[in-house]
């Protein structure tokens, strides 16, 4: 919302300087976004006179001017300055506008310096309107009437010294979309008094030929009130300078007096109006819901096809206006218009918003009606605008024609002054609270405050509090300590899952992974590759084709990140992310994942031969480390049926029965290919919530039992089919003696051609070390032999292998 200071002062009687007004506006919630003060830009341009203009000795098209300037203002000493000027109208005696050396000329962006033009000194400039950015006119320099006071600042002479203020109006304040509403706020703040707005009595000279009818089904909601009158004998000339200047200052283009007047009311009083060329209206005007499909050529030159239910104003020939949004081209005013029908109506905000949004029309009228104009101001606004048309365009007005009536929005809420103090925490005296409301237009009756008709946003007691608080100024609010929720040391506040999320993150960083935060939505190709990409997780209005579906998994985001890093020349990387993945499109169909991605080598090249390609067991180690850190039990099962984006032979799940806690493995080469990642790549995904919570919650550890008896290590090597899994052998060995065997570990594996040459085709050797920990007596050789025999038996049976001899 833009306004100018002089326009504001039409409504506000105030001696306050601009700075105070700007501060108050922002503090009141009408945030000042921009101020354009012409005095800062054009203040040094003054009215001057050309004493003599003679041809330039060295250039045919240039003139040498002796200019009388008055740098001290009118009535002060004259200073003669020599200026070289190229304007065709530069002549002896011309009264124009002079810019002295040192001036920044906004239209050219040049800072004036003393110059020599074709051998002749030139010290300043005689200016055109374009150089002052007043218009596009550059045919000649500004040529003022003979009575223009020499030495006066041109902005003062032309009435341009009017600061423009751009404020951000929050959606709850439609009243501030009219300058009068802004003035009212400032008056309530004590920055002046709101001037009266007397509504003229229009004497009806005739009866309008055009009548108006609201379709019965719209009276209750869409259009409760529609009024207008015919004005005949008007002359639609350009509007006067003061009006044009105001409109230009707020960024509107002056068109003609009739159109400018409607804009003037829109911005000045938040009262959008429409003028029809009455001679082009056939029959009466009907306000009705569209049946749908009607094509309508609007004033913006575009044709809109309206939808069923959109409100139209039609005459006998068809739609003449899209109600409350934009007028029609057919009945629009032209310079030749002599008879108009002036419309002032009250439209339902939601209906206007719905139509405006659907047809994508952003007009000043729509903007105001969908936020809410003053329903009680329909007729006063009509009369005020009629008077202005009569004043500027002449003519006679008819009596008002109208249908429906202003909806009664009267409502009152209880003012609880004690609650205001309690809620805001600021001591605002009761008398001040009441005064604030009254100045904002509320009517107080005891403790009941009736909201003014122009404040549709006031819908409860809380709104009264807000009005009082913002006028009292929240800047003055002093902080008051918040009582601690409970005395003493604060209790821990994180849930077990929140703690785990942090632990997983910190563990992975400690393992050397860099944390990424990637978008929750990814492209359809990637989503589909990772088991998602369904309609349920599709975004209806994506901002880019790369961000169309909620991610089913964190790996695609990490793989895309890896591809970008590879393109930047990084070959080795360890990336991770902890965050939500989405298994559906309903609220709550998300789960927390911690995913890691390893690509390249374990280390850069170094003199210690540390570098080696990362492999599945790196991913497995890190997945296990995270699982251990977040409290997963140490005894888990490995299963091989993993998701399709993993290498089928080189991946596994870590789980407890059917509950999968994590998957690790090599990423499927086809996936890498599709996602332009140079592989191989190792990855893991941890399903954080699938790790069971501890059953007992106590900081006490189980007692540590240490045996004084020496443990015994025994090694075994078995020859078995190469497809037999190591864990089968380990579990079998563990089962040989559950009390005596403390641990079984694989310490070697011998596979490949050499192994098969030695042990037979399809065979491998697997070496286990078993630790026996006696608890009550030292083991004898016989004891050890007995357990060893049992281990061999169990492992052989489970693996189909034999002890390697």
């Amino acid at each position, binding site marked *: 919302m833009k306004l100018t200071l002089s326009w504001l002062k039409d409504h506000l009687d105030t001696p306050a300087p601009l700075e105070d007004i700007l501060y108050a506006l922002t503090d009141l*919630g009408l945030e000042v976004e921009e101020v354009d003060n012409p005095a800062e830009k054009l203040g040094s341009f003054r009215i001057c006179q050309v004493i003599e203009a003679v041809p330039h000795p060295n250039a045919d098209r240039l003139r040498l001017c002796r200019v009388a300037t008055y740098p001290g203002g009118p009535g002060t000493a004259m200073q003669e300055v020599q200026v070289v000027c190229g304007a065709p109208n530069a002549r002896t005696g011309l009264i124009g506008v002079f810019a002295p050396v040192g001036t920044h000329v906004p239209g050219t962006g040049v800072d004036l310096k003393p110059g020599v033009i074709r051998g002749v000194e030139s010290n300043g400039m005689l200016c055109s309107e374009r150089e002052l950015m007043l218009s596009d006119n550059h045919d000649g320099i500004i040529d003022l009437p003979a009575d223009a006071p020499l030495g006066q600042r041109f902005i003062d002479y032309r009435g341009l010294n009017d600061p423009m203020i751009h404020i951000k109006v929050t959606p709850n304040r439609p009243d501030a979309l009219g300058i009068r509403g802004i003035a009212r706020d400032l008056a309530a703040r004590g920055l002046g008094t709101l001037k009266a707005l007397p509504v003229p009595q229009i004497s009806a000279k005739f009866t309008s030929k055009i009548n108006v009818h609201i379709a019965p089904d719209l009276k209750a909601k869409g259009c409760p009130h529609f009024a207008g009158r015919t004005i005949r004998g008007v002359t639609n000339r350009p509007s006067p300078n003061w009006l044009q200047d105001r409109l230009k200052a707020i960024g509107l283009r002056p068109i003609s007096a009739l159109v400018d007047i409607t804009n003037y009311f829109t911005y000045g009083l938040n009262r959008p109006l429409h003028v029809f060329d009455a001679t082009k209206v056939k029959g009466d005007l009907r306000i009705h819901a569209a049946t749908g499909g009607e094509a309508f050529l609007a004033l913006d030159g575009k044709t809109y096809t309206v939808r069923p239910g959109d409100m139209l104003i039609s005459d006998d020939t068809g739609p003449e206006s899209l109600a409350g949004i934009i007028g029609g081209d057919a009945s629009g005013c032209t310079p030749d218009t002599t008879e108009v029908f002036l419309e002032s109506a009250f439209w339902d905000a939601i209906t206007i918003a719905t139509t405006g949004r659907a047809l994508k029309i952003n007009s000043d009228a729509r903007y105001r009606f969908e936020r809410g104009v003053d329903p009680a101001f329909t007729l006063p606004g009509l009369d005020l605008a009629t008077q202005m048309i009569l004043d500027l365009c002449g003519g006679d007005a008819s009596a008002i024609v109208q249908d429906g009536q202003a909806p009664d929005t009267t409502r009152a809420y209880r003012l609880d002054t004690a609650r205001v103090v309690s809620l805001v925490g600021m001591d605002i005296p009761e008398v001040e609270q009441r005064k604030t409301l009254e100045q904002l237009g509320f009517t107080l009756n005891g403790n009941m405050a009736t909201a003014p008709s122009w404040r549709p946003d006031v819908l409860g007691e809380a709104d009264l509090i807000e009005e009082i608080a913002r006028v009292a100024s929240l800047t003055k609010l002093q902080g008051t300590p918040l009582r601690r929720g409970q005395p003493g040391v604060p209790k821990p506040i994180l849930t077990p899952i929140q703690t785990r999320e942090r632990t997983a993150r910190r563990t992975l960083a400690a393992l050397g*992974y860099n944390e990424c935060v990637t978008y929750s939505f990814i492209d359809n190709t990637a989503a589909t590759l990772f088991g998602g990409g369904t309609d349920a997780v599709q975004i209806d209005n994506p901002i880019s084709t790369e961000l169309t579906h909620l991610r089913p998994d964190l790996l695609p985001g990490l793989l895309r990140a890896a591809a970008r890093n590879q393109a930047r020349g990084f070959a080795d990387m360890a990336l991770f992310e902890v965050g939500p993945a989405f298994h559906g499109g309903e*609220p709550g169909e998300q789960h927390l994942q911690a995913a890691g991605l390893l690509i390249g080598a374990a280390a850069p090249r170094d003199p210690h031969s540390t570098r080696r390609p990362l492999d599945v067991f790196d991913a497995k180690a890190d997945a296990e480390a995270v699982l251990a850190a977040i409290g997963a039990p140490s005894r888990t099962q490995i299963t091989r049926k993993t998701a399709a984006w993993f290498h089928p032979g080189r991946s596994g799940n870590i789980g407890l029965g059917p509950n999968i806690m994590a998957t690790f493995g090599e990423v499927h080469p086809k996936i890498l290919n599709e996602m332009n990642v140079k592989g191989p790549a190792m990855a893991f995904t941890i399903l954080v919530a699938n790790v069971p919570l501890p059953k007992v919650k106590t900081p006490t550890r189980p007692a540590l039992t240490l045996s004084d008896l020496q443990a015994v290590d025994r090694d075994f090597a078995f020859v078995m089919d190469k497809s037999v899994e190591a864990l089968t052998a380990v579990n079998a060995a563990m089962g040989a003696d559950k009390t005596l065997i403390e641990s079984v570990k694989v310490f070697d594996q011998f596979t490949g051609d050499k192994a098969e040459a030695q042990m037979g085709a399809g065979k491998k050797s697997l070496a286990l070390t078993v630790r026996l920990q006696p608890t009550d007596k030292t083991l004898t050789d016989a004891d050890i032999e007995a357990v060893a025999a049992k281990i061999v038996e169990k492992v052989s049976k489970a693996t189909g292998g034999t002890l390697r001899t």
Partner: protein
Amino acid sequence: MDGLDTLKAKYLTAVANAADESALEEVRVAALGKKGEISAQMASLGKMDPDQRRAAGAMLNALKDEIDAALRGRKAGLADAALNERLRTEWLDVTLPARPRRIGTIHPVSQVMEELTAIFADMGFAVAEGPQVESDWYNFDALNIPPEHPARQEHDTFFMHRAEGDTRPPHVLRTHTSPVQIRAMTEQGTPIRVIAPGRVYRMDMDQTHTPMFHQVEGLAIDRDISMANLKWTLEEFCRAFFEVPSVELRFRASHFPFTEPSAEVDIRCSWAGGQLKIGQGDKWMEILGSGMVHPKVLTAAGVDPTQWQGFAFGMGIDRIAMLKYGIPDLRAFFESDLRWLRHYGFAALDMPDLAGGLSS
């Protein structure tokens, strides 16, 4: 017993001259071995009378001890010399690089979330969470943003696909963390103090906007919590978060559908040479929106607004991370550029806590 002096001189010289451990062993055997010269002398003691024996025995024992000590001393000296010789050859170029170790990092968003949590935990705020796909009721209606309210249009909302025949309004990607207010109050009742950090989504992508970013919501409801308490809480938060001795906040009246009164909050700062300093200077920078929770919002969450009141605020996590740590570009947060992650990331053990200071 002149013979003993000769013997002593002979063996001490031999010990001193022994070039290595085996030569030294030969000396020991020759002197103190079973058949050694001194052992032989000891054996001869038996033939002496007791007085003679006592005197000679004492001298022999002394000689034996002396030679033994010399042998041990020489042995230690030889061992040291051998070790020194070994060490002399065991030279390594210790200027070679150490064995490489991968250094991981924590993303600034995660770090700042933990900082926020540490500060608010001390003030008794728990951490609440909510779904990122939200029903429009939680994201809008319950927060006093009815369907046709212009504020809804200003949210640049992402809508989820609706299957044909499903007549429910489409779900949205939450446009703010405020719906967590409703869920937390509904689940936990009152009094309540929570913060809700997390991802939010808006259809906006340019130099300073990304379609996903992070917000933290704060909510405190009790019998008598006021806007002055809100101001104090935010002052304390900003002071602790930005790790400055004092901060100055300015509340500016504004409008949010879910709070009333509402205020935008500016913080005093200075910009000089591209450097932001919080708590000093003559500039004001907007950092968050806040207000007293609207009675309709309390009602929507099943809380009686005649009995309970309190405040809520929301602020951008990425934004305060940028301000605190001098990170220039929001878009880079989600680019996963390794150079950026390493430069702006935090070490695994940089765990923010109030005892040690958040960022030290």
